[in-house]
């Protein structure tokens, strides 16, 4: 079985976010990067499948050389090899095109990734990749089991769960509790640097969208403690003007 796990290289959840160039560029200075937390679950499930039934796991990232430490962390978690598509992941369409191009060259039985990245939170790439490859795409997947040639998945839907079955190959956007989150062990870390990390150039014409401007959410105002419901209603009516 061959599994492709697509990972994002995203700012640590505690990072302070700011922008430069008239709020059109994300300011990377001093930012710590991690594997996207949802992608982490996709890797963990791939590793469980590898341990349980044997699989060859490749990780893929669309990013410049600066993402290699993040990719090597995925290798430390147990992936066998890695591909870096040497380009800035400018939008979902562009990233999906890169993944689809790699997938066309290699017969993967499944393509796993996080349900969404935690930087732009587009949540579109898995659907686009499915479309481009003409494969079923399921997300957000909380449980994934393989029986013969069929993948049985539990998907989170509004107010409940949906149980789906698809034939391999397929695409899935993962989230917890699909697998037990993993910490790279010493052996994994020490073997990561000797695993292949292939760098390839991107395909296509680049991003379809351009960012005109980023804006931070407005700063939280001071909290006002009110003594009575009447006062609250009055404030909501006359000060906040929401009633």
């Amino acid at each position, binding site marked *: 079985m061959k599994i492709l796990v697509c990972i994002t290289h995203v700012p640590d959840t505690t990072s302070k976010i700011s922008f430069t160039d008239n709020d059109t560029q994300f300011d990377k200075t001093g930012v710590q990067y991690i594997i996207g937390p949802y992608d982490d679950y996709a890797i963990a499930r791939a590793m469980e499948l590898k341990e349980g039934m044997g699989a060859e796991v490749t990780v893929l990232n669309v990013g410049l050389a600066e993402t290699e430490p993040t990719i*090597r962390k995925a290798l430390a978690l147990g992936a066998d090899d890695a591909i870096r598509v040497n380009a800035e992941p400018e939008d979902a369409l562009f990233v999906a095109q890169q993944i689809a191009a790699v997938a066309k060259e290699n017969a993967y039985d499944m393509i796993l990734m996080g349900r969404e990245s935690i930087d732009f939170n587009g949540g579109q790439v898995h659907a686009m990749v499915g479309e481009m490859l003409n494969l079923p795409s399921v997300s957000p997947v909380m449980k994934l089991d393989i029986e013969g040639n069929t993948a049985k998945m539990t998907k989170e839907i509004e107010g409940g769960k949906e149980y789906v079955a698809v034939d391999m190959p397929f695409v899935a956007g993962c989230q917890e509790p699909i697998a037990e989150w993993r*910490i*790279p*062990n*010493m*052996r994994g*870390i*020490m073997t*990561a640097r000797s695993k292949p990390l292939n760098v390839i150039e991107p395909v296509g014409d680049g991003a379809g969208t351009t960012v005109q401007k980023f804006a931070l959410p407005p700063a939280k105002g001071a909290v006002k403690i009110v003594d009575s419901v009447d006062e609250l209603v009055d404030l909501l009516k006359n000060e906040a003007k929401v009633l």
Partner: protein
Amino acid sequence: MENKKAIKGGEFLIRETTPEEIFIPEEWNEEQKMIAQTCHDFIDTEVFPRLDEIDSQKDPELMPRLLDKAGELGLLGTSVPEALGGFGMNFNTTMLVSEVTGKGHSFAVALSAHTGIGTLPILYYGNEEQKKKYVTKLATGEWKAAYCLTEPDAGSDANSGKTKATLTEDGKHYLINGQKMWITNGGFADVFIVFAKIDDDKNLTAFIVEKAFGGITMNEEEKKMGIKGSSTRQIFFNDCKVPVENMLSERGNGFKIAVNILNVGRIKLGAAAIGGAKAAATAAVKYANERKQFGKSISEFGAIKHKLAEMAVKIYASEGAHYRAGQNIDDAYDAFVADGMDPAQARLKSLEEFAIECAILKVHGSEVLDYVVDEAVQVGGGMGFSADGPFDRAYRDARINRIFEGTNEINRMLTIDMLLKRAMKGHLDILGPAQAVAKELVAIPSFGDDGDDTFFAKEKKVLQNLKKAGLMVAGGAVQKLMEKLGDEQEILMNLADMLAEGYVAESVILRVEKLVKMRGEEACKMEIDLARVFLHHAVDVAVKAGREAIYAFAEGDEQRLMLMGLKRFTKIEPMNLKAARRRIADYMAEKNAYPF
């Protein structure tokens, strides 16, 4: 590289070190950072959610289970060579593991006792069979280890232990009889390193004792001020039958083993304390940002800024000194191995070479931690004192670090004792420089600066003078008191303080000098502040300790001359320390953590 290898232990006092010769934590490579991250993740996810449960000791299986999990990640085998199932990491990397896991409270103690004093005696002194049989299992955590040296009447005076080992008539076993105290991991250990005297020997002999050998009983868990989750037992050996092949090294070699193994543990204990201090400082910053009084966060008040900044200054300086010494140890190890020495032997030799630095850093790291947790409680105010607050456990758990693995008093005395012994053996030329300083004392002092305006030139002059102050006071004390100096423990403490703060100050100045070369001055403003504030602190310590020592051993003209010399050698250009601390504290508040 040649130059690096030539650095000798204790030599910092008489040798000018260049920034290129030292390793700084900003140079950790990607792999080392990943190892550190794994340690953080492990402590954050497996240990921190269970701190109360660990400290309650209600489930005696919890700690060994956590050690098993650490073993699965490979954290128990970092120092163990690959051939024995470990990862054969260099010393500095294993110290990084100690540092990061050091925030793990009682778990950190269990981990370091197992991997350090539990495993290393066999790794360094065991024969091939012993290593294969025990170290492989200890490296994975299949077996847990404890170290039994201390007895009710033999603490700091370890060689006075009364535990006996007697050969059985058939010559196949030793029967061990005696009582050991304060045995970390005692409650669940499978293997004990036991020190006992064979017949009426003067010196101890070490044995590898399996719990399964029988004849071992223990008291209930000790009730302690801190590290309440760490298993600490009193252990009784009653005709415990140990096969003769389980003697470690040779008969009578036990005290040497005990001393050398404690020496390895010392610097790592300092590093673990620094890890704990970073976590406590971060908790203090977060609390200071959250807590509002008089309409603003208390991190905006000068008195609190002072505390936060001082925490960072001390942590940053001490951290750098640890890894500077760690690199020296690694370089010495590489040189010994290149000369054909057996790796285990080389590891011990390299640590022995830097035993002075190891003792200094045990003291320094543990006292920085105590300073930080104390001030963290203060930042917390009422919440600092609350047992439900974030600082109570840190405060209590920190305290043991000044006591175990050789009290800080013993280590201070060792620092000076080792230095003087090396001088007397001719390994370290302290006499020459000390005489030169004595001459300088009576010569006309040079006024004004020498016009050197290179980066940190003035700070380096201060360092050079601090060393002179140390040499002057130590030289004076030795000359005056001769062999009686050993009985003047108070003066030894003064000398050790001057030496330690001087070493750490030099380390932080060199660290920041190297960092500036790597990143440019503009990017290192905070670090430059940290280094300068620490240097002032080191000068203050030298003034106070030096004066006390001089008052104690010198009189009349000699005293006056030395006090004048001390004044001259502790001169430092004024700087606005308050403003520097505010800059540091504001940066910490902005980052909401210990950020360096």
